[in-house]
């Protein structure tokens, strides 16, 4: 009998179908292409109050958690749409005669320092710093212009009055404050805000640049793995992240399953790593696909800064930063796919980049899989659970039922056989609230938010 994790009894509290509403109105074009709504990134802000999603159409939608009211004691705050804006537009590179997709690859929030919120959003080539601010007051009673904004006739002005601030309906404005462009020849795959809150790094397939948030016209190149002869290229950068506490440390992962930890104090160009993490390959399971499935799709530091987690095609590994030769924990996400690698190579699914995330206390980790399944692992009890994000199988406020994939032999009731998995329904992006047991799961063009049920 499969037992769910004791601390996590998730109930579906809110979901939003982003087909409806704002997105179409903002762009001014009736888009009949549903693929523009595919969610490409999900990120909670530092307090967890806001949840940002980016999609393939270059839009950012921010959800805000409702304040808990005394009337509804039994329910935590739900997430509602707070702001929607078009972050990136499709561009055309005239030199290469290629389109630059507007798809948002990554969103990262800056720590909040005043009433406004700031986030970085990146597509393949450009990073933008957006300021999201609220306006709930309006000044009325100007002297020189009337309420419509038209200038008043000077002869009509006989008295002087002080404008008064009147409340108005809350308006959330998003404005681009910085545009960091023209620094990446290859596609940006990661951005990461440094713990100094002044700098951030951006990584593409072959290079990593360090930016200052105030300076847009130049950046420092800190990693460059481009070979002199492109034909010798065998390895690319797949993800990069700054250490959560040490502003001089960052890591980047590669397509060969290695992670390099670098120290920016050592040299201006961090081509030589300080630490090199790689697990030796198991020779008995070697195949033509070994390298492809070892390619790391995501790397995340734990909140404590002592561990980091990497996601490759079939597993999630937790590494102790002090031990380079092997991970301390390995979790199998969907080992039943190992025998299907050839088909997954054929239909390109083997190149899917799954992300992973830690919970606030670093005691659990989560990652996505196929058939709209996602997996959670409790590091302490070593128990794991498979859940499904789909509308058919979950009603609001109903408990999520654990799912199981049947790997062979007799299929039990409620189990799904490997052959019936839908590989078009993949959960690549998930996020965990930094403090509470609230998770956001992006399933193609739907966003699911699950939270801990209070009994």
């Amino acid at each position, binding site marked *: 009998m499969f037992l769910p994790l004791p601390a996590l009894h998730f109930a579906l509290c809110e979901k939003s179908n982003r087909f409806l509403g704002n997105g179409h109105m903002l762009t001014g074009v009736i888009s009949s292409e549903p693929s523009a709504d595919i969610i490409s990134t999900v990120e909670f802000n530092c307090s967890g109050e806001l949840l940002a999603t980016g999609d393939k159409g270059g839009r950012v939608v921010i959800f805000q958690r409702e304040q808990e009211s005394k009337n509804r004691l039994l329910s935590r705050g739900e997430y509602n749409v707070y702001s929607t804006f078009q972050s990136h537009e499709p561009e055309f590179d005239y030199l290469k005669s290629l389109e630059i997709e507007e798809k948002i690859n990554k969103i990262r929030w800056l720590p909040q320092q005043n009433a406004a919120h700031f986030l970085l959003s990146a597509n393949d080539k450009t990073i933008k710093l957006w300021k999201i601010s609220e306006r709930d007051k309006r000044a009325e009673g100007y002297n020189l212009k009337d309420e419509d904004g038209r200038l008043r006739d000077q002869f009509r002005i006989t008295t002087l009055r002080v404008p008064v601030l009147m409340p108005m309906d809350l308006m959330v404005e998003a404005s681009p404050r910085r545009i960091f462009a023209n620094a990446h020849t290859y596609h940006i795959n990661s951005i990461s805000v440094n713990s100094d809150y002044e700098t951030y790094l951006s990584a593409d397939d072959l290079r990593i640049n360090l930016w200052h948030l105030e300076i847009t016209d130049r950046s420092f190149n800190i990693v460059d793995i481009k070979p002199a002869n492109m034909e010798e290229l065998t390895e690319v950068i797949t993800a990069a992240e700054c250490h959560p506490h040490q502003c001089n440390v960052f890591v980047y992962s590669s397509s060969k399953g290695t992670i390099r930890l670098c120290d920016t104090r050592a040299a201006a160009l961090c081509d030589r790593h300080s630490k090199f993490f790689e697990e030796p390959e198991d020779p008995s399971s070697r195949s033509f696909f070994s390298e492809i499935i070892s390619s790391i799709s995501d790397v995340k530091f734990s909140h404590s800064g002592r561990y980091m987690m990497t996601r490759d095609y079939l597993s999630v590994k937790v590494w102790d930063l002090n031990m380079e030769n092997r991970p301390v924990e390995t979790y199998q996400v969907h080992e039943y796919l190992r025998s299907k690698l050839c088909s997954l190579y*054929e239909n390109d699914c083997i190149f899917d980049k799954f992300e992973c995330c830690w919970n606030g206390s670093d005691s659990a980790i989560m990652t996505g899989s196929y058939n709209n399944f996602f997996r959670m692992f409790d590091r302490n009890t070593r128990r794991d659970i498979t859940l499904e994000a789909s509308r058919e199988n979950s009603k609001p406020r109903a408990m999520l039922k654990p799912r199981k994939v049947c790997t062979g032999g007799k299929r039990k009731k409620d189990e799904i056989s490997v052959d019936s998995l839908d590989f078009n329904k993949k959960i690549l992006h998930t996020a965990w609230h930094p403090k509470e047991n609230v998770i956001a799961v992006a399933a193609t063009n739907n966003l699911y938010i699950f939270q801990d049920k209070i009994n």
Partner: protein
Amino acid sequence: MFSKGTKRKFSDGGEAISDESLLGARVASSYSLQRQSLLDMSLIKLQLCHMLVEPNLCRSVLIANTVRQIQEEMTHDGSWHMVTEAFCSAGQSPSERLVATEVLCRSREQDAEPKLFSVISYEGCREEEVVADETLCSVSVSNTVSNVCLAGRMGQCWEKSELSGVERDEEVLEDSRLGSGEDEEIATEDGASTESPKTIGQVFGTFEIKNGSPGPDSALEELFSDVDTSYYDLDTMLTGMQSAPKMGPYDLLDSLAPSHSSPSIVSTPNCRSDLNELDHIMEIIVGS
């Protein structure tokens, strides 16, 4: 790597030995067929990149590494030349070969026969594979040429996507790593398949420029001979502080770019650099 648990046909004692060796040969050849099929599939994937949007470099690198791995193993086996010829002569249908590739990823313990599982295949995938198999057969005529051809194609795939239009032509003009055999291959390519001439043409399009007669191009070459090609090296420009900052026409642009601008303006720096490039070329032609 191949499964050792394949069912054996019933045979009486006298033929047991020959059957075993036959079985061994059959298993080995089926592994080779599957390996070849994987190679074909990989080459198709490398070629059929999206032509509108830049192809995913990570994916291309991984596929190319797989191709390299297979090539190395086949060269090591000595079966590189043999198998490609066998494919051309055998009348096996491409779809049969594709199904058989499942054996490649079967684990050792599994003794069951290969199941045809219902993996969702992306549209157009199978069609393209069937078509291109025949063209691949026609390409691999001789040992040395096909080896070189494949290497050239791999490099060309992300070279093409990375370099600018001007840079591409110059580099292709400079290193002629593919010999005269290229002309023959182009001829067979066009002849072999009419269904995907566009994709093959796109891959080999740049080769045609390279192999063109030097007549009208030599004047153009002379014109550009004293152009400082570092201006066209986008990488030096774009990576900023890596070396001593080189003040070129693009640096001025970057410093002029506003710190925040509406999205519609963002796309114009590409136009501006185009115009500056044109200015630069005009200066050289005019000789100022």
